């Protein structure tokens, strides 16, 4: 989904840049709250992780393979603000240093792949983890479903940008159908891999899974889990 230059016209690209900058500023404040003075090294290493996990190829069939996008995974592991911030930093580095994705498309790319993915994926994961039974095995399921849904949802945001500033007169339903169709398939893979990855981390270092703090508690034993405010 790394859109290049010229996919979206100049005014909408600039507007998306403003949205992305505002979102990033918000994430930065939130990440400082989640990590305090450990922010720079830890968020840096999580960003490398997102970058690296995108290089881990999962074979699908007939020689094709896919890889994780990692937005919801990062949010579930380190919290929504830090997660979105890390994915955005990966996109910035790819755009500015490796010429991957257009310079003017950075705003569009950050808004849909980082902000929109986390904005859909994390609240959904939180909702599911509170709704599903308390047993530990359900947490990866919640993360997986949220990750799976966040991918086509983010692609819809891209369709929205296309509707506002697309450079070609393709009927919107065609674009939406194609984008969402492809991304539902990608989302299924993303969901499965996210669930397996979260399950593996949960069994080794449950303290490193941010979402784990919000698992349903036994009613009397512990006070209610703290509420998080979503952006």
């Amino acid at each position, binding site marked *: 989904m790394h859109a290049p230059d010229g996919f979206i016209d100049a005014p909408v690209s600039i507007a998306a840049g403003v949205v992305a900058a505002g979102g990033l500023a918000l994430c930065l404040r939130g990440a400082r709250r989640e990590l305090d003075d450990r922010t720079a090294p830890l968020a*840096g290493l999580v960003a490398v992780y997102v970058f690296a996990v995108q290089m881990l190829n999962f074979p699908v069939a007939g020689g094709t393979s896919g890889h994780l996008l990692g937005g919801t995974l990062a949010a579930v592991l380190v919290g929504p603000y830090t997660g979105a911030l890390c994915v955005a930093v990966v996109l910035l580095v790819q755009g500015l240093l490796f010429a991957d994705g257009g*310079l003017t498309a950075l705003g569009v790319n950050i808004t849909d792949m980082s902000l929109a993915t986390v904005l859909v994926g994390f609240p959904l994961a939180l909702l599911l983890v509170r709704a599903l039974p308390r047993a530990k095995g359900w947490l990866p399921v919640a993360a997986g479903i949220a990750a799976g849904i966040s991918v086509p949802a983010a692609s819809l945001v891209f369709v929205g940008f296309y509707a506002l500033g697309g450079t070609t007169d393709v009927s919107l339903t065609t674009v939406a159908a194609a984008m969402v169709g492809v991304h539902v398939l990608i989302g299924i893979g993303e969901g499965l891999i996210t669930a397996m990855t979260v399950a593996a981390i949960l069994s080794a270092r449950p303290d490193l899974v941010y979402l784990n703090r919000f698992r349903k508690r036994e009613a009397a034993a512990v006070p209610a889990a703290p509420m998080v405010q979503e952006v």
Partner: protein
Amino acid sequence: MSGGHAHHTLYLPGTSVLHRLPAQVKLVAAVLAVLAIVAAPREQFWAFGVFAVVIVILAVTAGIPLLLIARRLLIELPFIGFALLLPFVASGERTDVLGLHLSTDGLWGAWELLATATLGVSVSILLASTTPLREVLTGLERLRMPTLIVQIMSFMIRYADVVADELRRMRIARESRGFVASNIRHWPVLGRSAGALFVRCFERGERVHLAMLSRGYTGRMPQPEGDGATMTTWGLALSLPVLFAAVSLTAAVLT
């Protein structure tokens, strides 16, 4: 440490004007130049010709082999697929080309996407191949990008190779035990690898933080000094986007 990134950076050492300009000036000039390209009306082929010629001249001045640029342009390949589809799916008037019934607007769209994406990526490649990573970060900091984001970016760049090596070692370990992922049933193993990689990355982050604290880290990194850009260098660098904007504007008036 800085020498080890050769395989994924584009930087080509040199002494041309493009190399010597401060990074912050080049960043601003590149973004504005690409915006001017995106804004050019697609009916005026000559405008895109001017952009292309100027970019080629810049590349030659900077001593960047055109073949290298061509190879790096392959990064936009997935979008070429999309562009080639446009004439078939776009609505509006239809026309016959080589016996195919195609949409005129789709053809225009495909041309515009190919032209702007190629020119845009070329500008990014020019920027990346004449500016070392460290200077891009300093440049961003001078442009008032929040320090914390610049710090996160610098950690990411610094540890990218370390983590990529970690991933490679895990693959070698799997393969030396006779496991090669070849179909979907192998996902649980790869999922565990991805999980293990996260634990290793996070724990490395904690170690790095402790090491920084023991060296007196208080939340700020030492500031880079000197080398601010003068008005002359700004003027020199901004002449590129000004030229492109003038071409774009002329093209728009002529349309």
